[in-house]
């Protein structure tokens, strides 16, 4: 007996919200980045579930593109983090406050 798609969607909603709350709460930029990955994974799970529920391969193709964009995003984001923290020590987002008035 297969699990109904609504259960997968509920699980993905919880995963997305955990990632969003973590992004708002944590101050370490690397952990904030990991929370973004959690949210992307929740969306991927939703797409695959909809692909099954609607019997449509388009959902899985979109997940493929999300994976590519996530990989590019991580590469550029970590490059920015390395470039910032080479100049100043401290790993929290509160330390990057140059534009603060």
């Amino acid at each position, binding site marked *: 007996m297969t699990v109904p798609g609504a259960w997968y969607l509920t699980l993905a909603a919880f995963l997305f919200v955990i990632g969003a709350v973590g992004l708002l709460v944590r101050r370490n930029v690397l952990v904030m980045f990991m929370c973004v990955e959690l949210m992307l994974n929740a969306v991927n799970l939703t797409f695959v579930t909809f*692909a099954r529920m609607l019997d449509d391969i388009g959902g899985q193709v979109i997940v493929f593109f999300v994976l590519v964009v996530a990989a590019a995003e991580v590469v550029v984001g970590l490059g920015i983090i390395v470039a910032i923290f080479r100049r100043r020590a401290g790993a929290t987002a509160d330390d990057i406050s140059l534009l603060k008035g």
Partner: protein
Amino acid sequence: MDWAVFIVAAIAILAGAVGVVTSRNPVHAALNLVLTLFGVAVLFVAQQAHFLAVVQVIVYAGAIVVLFLFVIMLLGVDQSENLEVEPLAGQRPAAVGIGIAALAALLLPILFGKWQWLSGQASVVGPAHTGTDPNVNRLAKALFTRYLLPFEATSVLLVIAVVGAVVLARRPLSSERRAETVTEEP
């Protein structure tokens, strides 16, 4: 059997996600992230998305998490963070409130059985399950016919990302560094 797989994977996913948010050490957060990614890959297999499950393990657990760990080690920021201090008054209650509101907004259409509001109608690309073709064949057919232009665009995106990472991570040339120190001094 399906329920057992789903429940075990769901527990792994949620435990890993909570671990990412609550662990003090970034290395532990990265390892918890691997747990979540494997759980999602298991659920991909449970929904007959075999190719995506393999790509999930290779790209996410194999490349992205290793990149995270590499940067953690490179920067030497693997010291733990004190989570008891709340830097901004009322930040955490506000974050939890936003989270509960988002969860309610996401769950309402699902609980009322109106998930089509979120998904829309089926597209014209092709079926995911009816028929006898394997999953990889269907995905490849869709990717190289209807989605060929976005597929080529992702290759351009990857090239741009590689060039951007190199530009960001390289050490500035000696002449540029002198100019930067001059501008930064006042």
